[in-house]
């Protein structure tokens, strides 16, 4: 008799836990509150996780050193500086305004702390926040290419919107033709360049970077290359697929 009662109790508790879990699953994906709780929990775990972060950083640094990466990094920085100078010179030649201080070769690094499967192509959380001088709208990079921009900031972490997000819309320019368009993500891992007048000789492989028109992002930040034309509408404008400079499936850190 006792055994039956115990089994029933276990069954009731088990079902209650299952129903509660399903309920949480059902309601929480759309709640902004969950994001705050996730941030808070991440901040609380910062203390026990801190030694792991340090150990990992030390290991990565050692590995980098052992592979003689430092000399390569120095070379990359040198090339970036040279690239920045050339970009400024080019901008002067064609009369475009460009801010040299915006193209910084020495960027800081942040770790990707969370990339939720539900918004895989839309946003990431990074482990740097206000105390690390992160501010809303700040562009983030990987390997020198634009990856997205900071959308919200808390004390020790921030959320950043990725270029593959449908709500990430920025003006961009095709560097070879100087045609202006709008970069937008499709939410499925692709990046598109829209509103380029059709028949202007845009070719695969042409470079795309941010344009200077009324946005928080400075001009001249490299985004990627033209991968091909998707459609040419009856309105006279074409849409191109962009191959981002960042491998969107292979970044564990970002620069800012």
């Amino acid at each position, binding site marked *: 008799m006792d055994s039956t009662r115990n089994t029933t109790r276990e069954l009731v508790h088990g079902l209650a*836990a299952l129903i509660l879990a399903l309920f949480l*699953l*059902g309601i929480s994906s759309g709640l902004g509150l969950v994001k705050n709780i996730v941030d808070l929990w991440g901040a609380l775990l910062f203390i026990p996780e801190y030694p792991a972060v340090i150990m*990992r950083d030390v290991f990565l640094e050692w590995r980098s050193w052992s592979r003689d990466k430092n000399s390569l990094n120095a070379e990359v920085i040198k090339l970036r500086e040279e690239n920045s100078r050339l970009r400024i010179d080019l901008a002067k030649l064609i009369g475009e305004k460009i801010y040299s201080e915006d193209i910084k070769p020495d960027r800081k690094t942040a770790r990707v702390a969370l990339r939720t499967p*539900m918004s895989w192509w839309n946003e990431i959380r990074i482990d740097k926040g206000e105390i690390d001088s992160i501010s809303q709208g700040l562009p983030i990079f990987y390997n020198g290419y634009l990856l997205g921009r900071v959308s919200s900031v808390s004390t020790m972490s921030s959320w950043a919107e990725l270029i593959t997000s449908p709500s990430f819309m920025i003006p961009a320019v095709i560097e070879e033709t100087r045609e202006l368009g709008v970069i937008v993500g499709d939410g499925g891992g692709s990046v598109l360049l829209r509103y380029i007048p059709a028949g202007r000789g845009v070719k695969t492989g042409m470079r795309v970077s941010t344009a200077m028109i009324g946005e928080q992002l400075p001009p001249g930040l490299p985004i990627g290359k033209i991968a091909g034309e998707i459609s040419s509408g009856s309105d006279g404008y074409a849409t191109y697929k962009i191959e981002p400079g960042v491998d969107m499936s292979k970044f564990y850190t970002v620069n800012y």
Partner: protein
Amino acid sequence: MLLIILWLIQDFLTVLNGGEMHIPGLFMLGLVYNLSFNDSSDVNLRAIWSAFAGGILWDLRWIGIPGFFTLGNVCAVLIFIKIWEAVPPQGHTGFLFFILMEISQIVPPLLPILILAGSTAWNFFLLQQVYSLPAILVTMYLFFKKIQQNLTQGR
């Protein structure tokens, strides 16, 4: 207390490897190990809610949406309790224990993959199962050691 430590170790190891490989579900292994030497209903109830709490905290840290590991953990514990109690003590063999531990490693990450992910995640999932094997073998060693100890003490 042991479960909290195991949860923190699992989290610590996940941070340490930076998401490059999946870490075995140490928390669930500890939970299942504890249950295997228990015949009290209260312990079973505590295990169900511990699995729930461990799952929700894991979801909040690594998935961003509470419910996935919560559901998986609770399912795995319920499966363990039902099968372990349905089989008489003579049948509590190493093989059965191994199977149930495997279930505790397979079920929790299965739900997020079934619902959210594509083929790449399946590779990660299979790799996690491979990485779990050493941890499962260590737990089995502890299981046999405890059985031996109980036999020596005449329990």
